């Protein structure tokens, strides 16, 4: 627990980062840049888990352990998505979302 900082302020920061990620996800047209916005969203969600664990239920460890799982799932998701993007780039030579029209070649 950070002395002098209430739960409201940390939740405010994570909310702002979450919606910055949403803004990036809506505006970006590049597949890798959209994935980066998803990283921002996942990170703010994990921060929420940890903060609520620490400030409201300090005797349990559920939030911290679920953040570890979120980080593991995010790593798996990034590896798979980047593999798909590299494979897609070989086929259509582009990373724009407008150019990825067909689902199966």
């Amino acid at each position, binding site marked *: *627990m*950070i*002395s*002098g*900082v209430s739960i*409201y*302020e*940390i939740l*405010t*920061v994570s*909310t*702002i*980062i*979450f*919606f*910055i990620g*949403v*803004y*990036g996800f*809506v*505006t*970006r*047209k*590049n597949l*890798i*840049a959209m*994935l*980066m916005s998803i*990283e*921002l969203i996942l*990170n703010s969600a994990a*921060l929420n888990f*940890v*903060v609520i664990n*620490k400030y*409201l239920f*300090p*005797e349990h*460890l559920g939030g*911290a*352990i679920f953040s*570890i*799982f979120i*980080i*593991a*799932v*995010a*790593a*798996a998701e*990034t*590896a*798979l998505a*980047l*593999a*798909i*993007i*590299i*494979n897609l*780039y070989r086929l259509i030579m582009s*990373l724009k979302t407008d150019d990825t029209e067909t689902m199966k070649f």
Partner: protein
Amino acid sequence: MERIIFYIISVLMIVFAVMAVSNRNIMRSIVYLLFVLIGIAGIYFMIEFYFLGAVQLTVYAGGIIVLYINSVMLVEKINTPLPSVVWWRKLLAASLSIFGIVLTLFAIWSYNFVKIAESQTKDTSINDVGRALLNYGDRGFVLPFEVISILLLAAMVGAIVIAKTNKPQENNELK
């Protein structure tokens, strides 16, 4: 003192997050994303989840960012700027985000969280995290732990299968 450090980290994180989603050079925006991830690791260290902060630093700042940089270098010229966004789409996304921020902050600040005295919180050591992860009794997490290990294995195999090239097979067929 801790309060001032928290505010500095928060402001830096928000500024770098905005730059990460708005910069048109993708390499720079990856580096700004790295700063945001390090800031979140700093908050983990400040609320005394040291193991989680270390995992955040090694997996995100060490692993995922390198993966992004490698794949950007594999697929595109680094200096190619991203396509610019039309103004109405920016305006729409910004108003959507600001509406969401206002709505969520209203919900958070109007809710009355139970306050816990600072003396009640205890330090979380790596021992506690490990015992909770391998505990199969009450409040144990051994099942999600095993499921996540299988998920990581499947993701690793899947990434190799998806990203591998088909050229050797074609050569064999030609022979």
